[in-house]
């Protein structure tokens, strides 16, 4: 959805890319399905003090638990808000249950619904159709879910509105000098989230002279990307296939860190704000 196609992406430092791309009040999708979660970019958003953001992600995960706890978010668009394999996202719960640090508006879907909303956004369509939400109370709760009738069979199906974030940020293994990006391992919804966005940034582990073709790789042409920034280890505590392992111990440790507001604030001060 980028307005003017140019055949290359601009390689800039992360801080510059973030300040160029993201304004207060924007809708931003920092995607990555367990794998390749762009934590470095989120930490930069926190350091730059962005506010009133609409945060979009299938799985808010620790990355949005941190942004919500730090007061960056006005609204969350999501489908599963837990700490995978561990339990709750306490900052997310605190915002929803007690409005701390600020009330959080929710737009809640299922994974299938969110994935199809990104796909519609990437396809330049206003909506997507799926067999979804049958008998679920989400259908009544969520304004961006409606029903639609098949013009051939008359069957009733679910329709979800497209997602077109102001900005999508994803993390990948490599980019070449022109800004073509290659990622591999679990691909998630990053291609759709990136192609659905008005503006985009890809953080990468490293710049390389040529992208070596690899099994299971997704290649994103430079002309579909606005900015590329080098952020080694930028997906920690999630992981970058071939570069790092998922820090499962940290995901477990986050439960205690995030449970208490002060402990959380101190941790963020030390590990993000002061970093």
């Amino acid at each position, binding site marked *: 959805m980028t307005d003017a196609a140019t055949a290359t992406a601009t390689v800039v430092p992360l801080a510059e890319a973030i300040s160029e791309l993201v304004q207060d009040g924007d809708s931003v999708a920092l995607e990555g399905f367990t794998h390749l979660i762009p934590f470095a970019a989120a930490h930069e958003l926190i350091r730059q003090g962005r506010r009133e953001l609409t945060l979009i992600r299938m799985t808010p995960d620790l990355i949005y638990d941190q942004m919500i706890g730090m007061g960056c978010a006005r609204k969350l668009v999501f489908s599963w808000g837990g700490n995978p394999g561990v339990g709750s996202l306490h900052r997310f719960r605190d915002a929803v249950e007690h409005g701390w640090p600020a009330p959080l508006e929710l737009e809640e879907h299922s994974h*299938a619904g969110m994935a199809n909303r990104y796909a519609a956004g990437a396809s330049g369509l206003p909506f997507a159709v799926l*067999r979804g939400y049958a008998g679920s*109370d989400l259908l009544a709760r969520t304004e961006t879910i409606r029903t639609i009738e098949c013009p051939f069979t008359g069957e009733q199906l679910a329709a979800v509105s497209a997602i077109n974030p102001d900005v999508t940020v994803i993390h990948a293994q490599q980019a070449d000098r022109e800004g073509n990006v290659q990622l591999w391992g679990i691909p998630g919804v990053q291609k759709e989230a990136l192609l659905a966005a008005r503006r985009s940034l890809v953080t990468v582990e490293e710049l390389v002279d040529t992208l070596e073709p690899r099994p299971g790789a997704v290649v994103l042409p430079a002309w579909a990307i606005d900015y590329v920034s080098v952020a080694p280890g930028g997906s920690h505590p999630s992981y970058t296939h071939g570069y790092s392992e998922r820090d499962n111990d940290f995901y477990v440790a986050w439960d205690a860190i995030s449970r208490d507001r002060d402990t959380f604030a101190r941790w963020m001060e030390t590990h993000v704000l002061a970093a």
Partner: protein
Amino acid sequence: MSSLPETREPVGEPLAWTPDEMMAVAAARALEDGKICFVGIGVPSTAANLARRLHAPGLVLVYESGTLGTRPDFLPLSIGDGILADTATAVVGVVETFNYWLQPGRIDIGCLAGAHLDRYANINTTVIGNSYDAPRVRLPGAGGAPEIAASCREVLIVMRQSPRAFVERVDFVTSLGYGEGGDDRARHGLTGAGPKAVITDLGILEPEPGTRELVLTHLHPGVTLEEARAATGWELRTAPEVETTAPPSAEEIRILRELEQTRAGAA
């Protein structure tokens, strides 16, 4: 979908195995060899990987991370651990996973955990309390569950039984079981048959033919009917014959414990 249960002390007289272990073993037994299984994280993932190491080496595991036919040699903590991609027949994107693989009904059985469950096997993983906007407890949400519960040919639910979790009526229907009971699923145009069993740490509940109300069909060894009733938030009825689950074999327990020890960074 849900968080891992903290390990609970053996109930009743000391046993060679815990109720959680009995639950995982009973769930594994319910997964037939050669079937395609859509696996939720937590106990379902433990059960599916246990089944593959026991009677079902040909069980095909599909995780919502797009790993088709994955054969992890240790238990993943999340549905997106790298081991799932490294050992998969094919790895695809999330859009394809739900649209091309789950939605058309290619999956034989979906294995889910729940937070709250009602007498018609409807699952709530969204909010506890009667206000969505001001919930008493905010749960993680739907994830893949609504479509897994809808589109798999059948569904297996695995969760601990307690009066808090097994309620007369869930506060929020996240994923449909049998709705209001009877043929209510059909009214929603669902292709899948719905939950065939709910396997708990105390026994097994199955939908009663006709009403589709969950009734007790099995008690695990050492568990009494009273304990099961006390752990259920509705007037739990029983099948004409309540059988006793076969206790875990030495092999089942040995392999389960080996498996649990392999879970990277487990709490």
